[in-house]
């Protein structure tokens, strides 16, 4: 038998059914792993010594009743919520247990994991590199086999980008697929909770578990996402769009090579590759950094120094920066030039995707322009940091689903293939991801810790 902790979620469930091991043994195995490797990685902020349940790692930006929830911020250093996020309730119903809360950039604002008030999370593939962010701890925990699966949140790429940089599967569902109730809001019209897993089929299963309306999130679709197992998926004749805007200046040549090879592989599997245009991609980052911070400036007003303890000085510099940006963008005299204009760009970007999807079933490209970078390399340059999300942000602006699937290595570091789909069409991107994964088996590669 394989090492228990190297099993995927679906393999783990089968093994438990066969009674290969007990839930207690399963939890013990993961807890041992955490004890051994977490000091190196700083993936978990809080660990629960459970004896039963399927152990899942939960990003600390997701509310857990009775379990400290800091969202990586000093302001919530002692916040023990009185309620559970809907996704947590859903997982508990499936027999999942909260193994621990994972580190993240403060209030999910960051692309490297370096903005957490509780220290940086390290990339399991190279401890001198960033894991990406903001779901840094969740991704590192999955990559290092410290949990069966994890939940992250994705507002501008916070699931897909770290998944790419750490070589695991990350899925951002369509906006409205999963209830946001209990996800500490960053930017409310962008946020989605999604799975970070060891395989594409695992992502399918977790999405099935956490999706569906709850009468708490007014923007959440009622129906659950439910499809049959992905086994035997065939992508012959499927149209795969490749946007040239995703292969321009700024894309690392090593990453480009790996992505081109992955596209070739999809062609070999029978997919038809077509060129598509996403003309407004270059405005995505700018629009996001107006609309996102506008919502942030309002969402973070509740931390007014009266409750939760501590003053607003406890916000880290990235949070302060975005609050300032957003406050400015919404102010009288600036609203039309900033917020209103960015909202128009958002509409144009949505239109880009609608048009592109007339020609193809999915769109593929890189998740991140580079592989994981050195710790500290971009901390003094917020703009460079923002640009690392150039390929992921547009999906959040458009509300469409996106998947990151491991697709090889560049100079020893993982590269993720991004697969974008039409709104509500997680099924097709999971199919493409699954077919690719089964044909290449990159997911079997594990970091040596």
């Amino acid at each position, binding site marked *: 038998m394989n090492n228990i902790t190297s099993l995927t979620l679906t393999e783990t469930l089968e093994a438990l059914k066969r009674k290969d091991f007990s839930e207690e043994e399963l939890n013990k195995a993961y807890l041992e792993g955490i004890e051994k490797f977490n000091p190196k990685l700083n993936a978990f902020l809080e660990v629960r010594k459970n004896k039963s349940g399927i152990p899942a790692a939960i990003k600390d930006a997701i509310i857990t009743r009775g379990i400290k*929830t800091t969202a990586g911020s000093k302001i919530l250093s002692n916040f023990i919520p009185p*309620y559970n996020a809907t996704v947590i309730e859903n997982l508990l119903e499936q027999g999942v247990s909260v193994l621990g809360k994972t580190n993240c950039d403060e209030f999910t604002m960051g692309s490297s994991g370096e903005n957490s008030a509780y220290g940086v999370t390290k990339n399991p593939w190279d401890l001198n590199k960033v894991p990406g962010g903001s779901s840094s701890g969740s991704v590192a925990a999955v990559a290092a086999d410290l949990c069966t699966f994890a939940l992250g949140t994705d507002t501008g790429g916070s699931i897909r980008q770290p998944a790419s940089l750490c070589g695991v599967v990350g899925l951002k569902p369509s906006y409205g697929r999963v209830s946001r109730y209990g996800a*500490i*809001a960053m*930017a409310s019209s962008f946020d989605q909770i999604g799975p970070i897993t060891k395989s594409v089929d695992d992502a399918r299963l977790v999405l099935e578990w956490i999706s569906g309306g709850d*009468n708490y999130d007014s923007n959440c679709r009622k129906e659950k996402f439910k499809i049959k197992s992905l086994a035997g998926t065939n992508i012959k004749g499927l149209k795969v769009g490749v946007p040239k805007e995703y292969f321009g200046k700024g894309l690392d040549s090593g990453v480009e090579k790996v992505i081109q090879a992955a596209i070739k592989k999809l062609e070999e599997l029978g997919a038809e590759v077509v060129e598509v245009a996403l003309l407004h991609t270059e405005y995505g980052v700018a629009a996001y950094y107006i609309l996102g911070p506008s919502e942030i400036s309002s969402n973070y007003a*509740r931390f*007014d120094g009266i409750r939760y303890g501590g003053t607003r000085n406890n916000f880290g510099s990235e949070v302060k920066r975005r609050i300032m940006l957003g406050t400015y963008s919404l102010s009288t005299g600036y609203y039309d030039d900033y917020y209103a204009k960015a909202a128009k760009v958002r509409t144009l970007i949505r239109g880009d995707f609608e048009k592109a999807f007339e020609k193809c079933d999915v769109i593929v490209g890189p998740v991140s322009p580079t592989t994981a970078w050195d710790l500290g390399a971009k901390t003094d340059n917020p703009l460079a940091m923002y640009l690392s999300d150039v390929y992921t942000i547009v999906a959040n602006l458009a509300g469409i689903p996106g998947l990151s699937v491991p697709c090889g290595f560049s100079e020893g570091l993982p590269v993720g293939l991004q697969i974008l789909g039409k709104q509500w069409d997680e099924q097709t991107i999971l199919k493409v991801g699954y077919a690719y994964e089964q044909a290449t088996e990159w997911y079997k590669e594990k970091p040596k810790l």
Partner: protein
Amino acid sequence: MNYEPVIGLEVHVELNTRSKMFCRCSADYFGKEPNTHTCPVCLGLPGALPYINEQAIEDCMKIGLALNCKISEKSLFERKNYFYPDLAKGYQISQYRWPLCINGKLKIENGQWIRINRAHQEEDTGKLTHVDGATLIDFNRSGVPLVEIVTEPDFHDVEAVRDYSKKLQQVFRYLGVSNADMERGDMRLEANVSVRPEGTTDLPSYRVELKNINSFRFMVAAIEYEIKRQIEALEKGEKILQETRGWDAEQKSTYIQRSKEEAHDYRYFPEPDLPQLTVNSKQLTEITEEIPELPWDKAKRFVADLGLTEAQAKILTQSKELADFFEIVVEHGKKHAVLAKDAANFIVNKKPDINSMLPTQIIEEIKGKNVGKIEDEAELKSLAEQAIQADLKTVEDYKAGKLTAIQALIGGVMKLSAGKADVSKLKPILEKILKEKP
């Protein structure tokens, strides 16, 4: 020079829905233990989200329809951002650029139509209490549904303001959407006051906002004071500043609360947590059908059909309860050759207590003889059962703690019995049935 006041009114009314605007907490907060009607949503805890209370939206539409507003097919919630310790989220969910009800009008006693700019839906804040130098926060009121009704600056004298406000209160009570009790804060008035030389029609370049005034009487006094103050200042050649003023009941004067420089920039933007509000024609028809006959229509009918004087009709339609009582008396009176006019005369002049007196007793007194009273318990029980079956919603309200709902059921029995049921015997019977009902 003579001056003409120019006044616009903003009225906030708290709806009496069972739950709050965006969460499941009970909205019946008055006099309750502080911070017991709260949840993650109305406390603004991280991660919590608003979820729209449909009943509140319907009530807001009813108010809009009663005030002759156009109901917007599409409207939008927006966030009004400002800091105050009683504001849990740091913003109030309100409506701004796309309100639910627009372009209404209401006719007041002097025959003038007051134009209504909008009636929109929003939520209330928590409540601060200052005790011994400390400030306490009670979030029970946080998130209770509020409707704000804004007029155009159409008032030119205080009497019109008073009349309009009283009419609004009457409408809220007829619609059953609010108790509209000023002392309890169910209904709050704000006035924008300025003056201009008589004969001119331009809007003055400033306006003084009178805020936080909790009775009709004080509001009238504050406006009167303010008109005088402004005229005096203009006469002296002073420039009046745009500002917010309160009312000092002891000094009988207004005082400055906030100058224009301190005014908030609310940074309104569309509430990203809520979808656009859409009203389809079917919904609109259903809600329109639920609007009861309004006092002015009732009064017209009393004059036209029953031969009452306008003065009588006005008095008898002051409250829906009184009007309903009067109509039962009229209905019952038909069998005993009592004219509607006689019934009206009696009620208007003698002012009987309609909560303790029976319609039959009124007839008896008018006729000076006994016309029969139902005192038999079995008969009363059967009537009570019928009234309950016919009005299950009221039963629900009663079960939910709205004990005054029983009055509606008593009214129901009265209708069924042509006013002959003995209330003193009926009430305990109703209470018993309701108590036993699951």
